[in-house]
């Protein structure tokens, strides 16, 4: 197995012409859309995607076809959103999909919109991805010109308008209801559920929000069928998945892997292991919000939803952060705690106050001003946040915090016992970074 064996999603990655409609069409693009619009009913598409077992690639891993089925029958207006607010630290796969192959996502979006009987689709692109907005808009314009979007698509009678929307740069807008509020012109913050967006979302109408990678997976499922899709992956985690790998490995980058691939093989054979002089210490496997696993634990995991779940972490977004022995874990968690403190929308009290509190405690530890009680206090604050809020941002802060402390407690204790860390020396002197 090698990276080039799996090119369902990433066929045009790394090429300088893959974003062009002509290239996409020449390589079989928009064939799936023709198939769908020349005879498949929306329910057929839903059933096929459900049968393929495609699980949401944004992080939660909820079955995409099942989610589509939540739209009430007979809804007069349904909205479809593609979530391209990719802002989970460590994650940069959707950016590749949209940059190198925007038409794959657009085709997937048209088919997905058809499946939920939506006539208006939005692609919500993270504000920081300014160039992607232009790239995707150009591709959308091409699709309109070619008759893949607009009125009566390919003579089928199906209409779909597509709007490319640029976010204003907030992590929380990647949460479904935060995204909807942001597009609706309200403050980007999550809404309470119920009602769930599939019943009452954008403008109070049924709304489906799917990750870029989820919709980009749909054309393959239509073209090659359920069996071909299930040929890769495991029974419960079928298909391929993009992982974006950062950190001091020999070959960082975005990889399409068959789910179930042993981490050990991925790490040694695909990533080429660590760069010279570095040793693997830990891995955050699915974006910064999932629990960290020390090297010896991740080495026994397979990269799929179940195996990682059993190991106490999550596959998440596939944003894999490789942590070398030379890293100071307390410093890393300080960076993360600053992130969640900065990005909490401030709506729910446990998250608003808890993220700030955790950040202060960790900062204090790193200044050498910590006390032995602080580690229990961290646990106490985490307990007051986890599971007590509208959206999972509080949990997203608690999971790394708890796991860093649980798995690398000696590094925290060393900071308290001495004024200098016993562990590896930080690249930044303590207290100088105002994170």
């Amino acid at each position: 197995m090698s990276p080039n064996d799996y090119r369902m999603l990433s066929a045009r990655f790394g090429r300088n012409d893959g974003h062009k409609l002509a290239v996409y069409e020449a390589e079989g693009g928009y064939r799936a859309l023709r198939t769908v619009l020349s005879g498949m009913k929306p329910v057929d598409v839903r059933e096929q995607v459900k049968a393929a077992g495609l699980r949401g690639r944004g992080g939660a891993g909820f079955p995409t076809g099942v989610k589509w089925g939540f739209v009430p029958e007979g809804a007069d207006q349904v909205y479809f959103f593609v979530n391209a607010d990719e802002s989970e630290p460590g994650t940069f796969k959707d950016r590749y999909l949209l940059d190198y192959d925007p038409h794959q996502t657009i085709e997937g979006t048209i088919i997905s919109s058809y499946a939920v009987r939506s006539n208006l689709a939005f692609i919500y692109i993270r504000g920081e991805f300014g160039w992607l907005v232009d790239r995707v808009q150009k591709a959308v314009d091409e699709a309109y010109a070619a008759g893949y979007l607009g009125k009566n698509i390919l003579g089928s009678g199906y209409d779909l308008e597509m709007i490319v929307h640029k976010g204003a740069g907030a992590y929380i807008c990647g949460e479904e209801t935060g995204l909807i509020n942001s597009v609706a012109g309200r403050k980007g913050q999550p809404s309470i559920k119920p009602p769930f967006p599939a019943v009452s979302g954008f403008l109070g109408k049924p709304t489906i929000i799917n990750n870029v990678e989820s919709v980009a997976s749909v054309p393959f499922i239509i073209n090659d069928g359920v069996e071909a899709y299930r040929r890769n992956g495991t029974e419960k985690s079928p298909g391929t998945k993009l992982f974006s790998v950062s950190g001091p490995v020999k070959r960082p980058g975005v990889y399409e892997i068959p789910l179930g691939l042993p981490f050990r093989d991925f790490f040694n054979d695909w990533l080429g292991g660590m760069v010279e002089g570095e040793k693997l210490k830990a891995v955050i496997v699915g974006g910064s919000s999932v629990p960290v696993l020390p090297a010896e634990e991740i080495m026994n995991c397979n990269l799929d939803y179940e195996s990682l779940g059993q190991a106490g972490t999550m596959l998440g977004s596939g944003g894999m952060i490789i942590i070398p022995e030379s890293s100071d874990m307390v410093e890393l968690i300080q960076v993360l705690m600053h992130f969640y403190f900065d990005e909490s929308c401030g709506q729910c009290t446990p998250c608003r106050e808890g993220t700030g509190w955790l950040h202060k405690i960790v900062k204090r530890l790193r200044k050498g001003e910590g006390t032995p009680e602080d580690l229990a206090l961290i646990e106490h604050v985490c307990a007051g946040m986890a599971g007590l809020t509208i959206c999972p941002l509080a949990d997203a802060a608690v999971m790394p915090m708890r796991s860093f402390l649980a798995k690398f407690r000696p590094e925290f204790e060393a900071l308290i016992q001495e004024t200098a860390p016993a562990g590896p020396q930080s690249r930044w002197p303590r207290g100088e970074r105002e994170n």
Partner: protein
Amino acid sequence: MAKLTIDGKEIEVADGTRLFDACTLARGEALPHFCYHPDLSVAGVCRLCQVEVEGMPKLTIACNTTVRDGMVVHTKNERVRKAAQQVLEMHLINHPVDCPICDQAGECGLQNQYMEYGLYDSEVEEADKVNKKKAQVIGPQVILDKERCVLCSRCVRFCNEVTGTGELGIYNRGDRAEIGTAPGIELDNNYSLNTVDICPVGALTSRDFRFQKRVWMLKSTESICTGCATGCNVRIDHEAGRIYRLKPRRNAEVNGAWMCDKGRMTYKGVHDEKRLLSPAAGGERLTWADAGQKLAAIAGAGVGLYVGSAHQTLEELWLLRRAAAGAPVSGGLANADRGQADALLLDADRTPNRAGLSLLGVGEDEPAQLAERIRKAQGAVVILGGDPAAEPAVAEALGGRTVVYVGTHRNATAQLATLALPGATWAEKAGIMVNRQGRLQELRQAVARAGDAREDWRILAELPAVRGDAPASLRALRQAAGADLGLDLTNLPASGLAPAGAAAPKTGGDA
């Protein structure tokens, strides 16, 4: 109907009932909460009302949960109490705890919840609490302390959903989030003080009430507002004969949970320096004994016209009609005390009892009409309340006539009265007012009458036609008036007595 078990107690509630309300029923008290308000949309942000529903892995907020048949709910077990305590601790970590100088102390949600759910040893080691702006004037009536705010968003939702004015918003995010107004915008609407009422902490305080009184010194009297024909249900907060504020009382049939800012300020008239505090004749103060003799003499010589007012209670107006004993009675000026209505509660009719005049069949007059009736009247003119002489035509007609005036303030009518008698203001007496819906509601006495002021009905009882058979008490007066009108006036329901076919309320919260 849904049958559910809450803390081991079985209760049955209507389908669609909010679990929060079902819990209140079962527990006899509300769950701890800041953001939930029955008259506003659900925000679900304070996270205090979390309860355990069997079969659900996580705790759930009761305010955003609808009851299901067979639900088994725990609101008092260790897990729930612990969660409430933890959330409360989060609420307090950046709170300034400046209770001694906070107007809300004594009626503060944070203080109350802490007594109930807190009582922990503080874990907060951080010296650097998040500092925010304190004592910021955000409108003519309201002052904002951002540090005390728990960001429950009630005030924001009120301005969005009730007044539709949208002045307030939550700016910034995380623990830097704060309530504010956009540049150049003020919280300036006729309902702005409701934000102070619904603020569970001392973040929004009333500029009028600020630093006037510690709230635990106040006594409360349930009454109604007399500022307009709506008759919002209020609580008069007072101490030692002085009123400090009016607060709305929830009556879904009349005012929901709200009242207007104009109405709240009506208490100032009770303590106005222009109050009529003793009987007076020709600019000279009289004792009540002398005044009584003078009244008897004037009335004995014959009264040609009785003039009432829509400011007086139903009982007083009924007694005035009886005192007239067939002589002409006017309801006062039809054009007086009118203003602009708003879309919510404030009525264009700024009197509390015009519907009461109608109920008694006493018609009002236009100024020229009233002037004409005065001119035609043989003998004295007795005026109860209002200020008809504020109209030049009426003042001219009254010139040189014998005029008895029962009123509360030294107004134009009091100035030209032959005999001016001090009546009681709305806060100094009990009575019944009939609001614009035709609903009979009770005014209750909150404070002692100022100076020598007397209840108006006792003054009227001195008139010759009543004197021989004067009611012994207000209750007796009510019984007599009620018997006459075919209404039970001695036992009004808490939400008022709505006659059949009364107009639907303009606002009613979630009635």
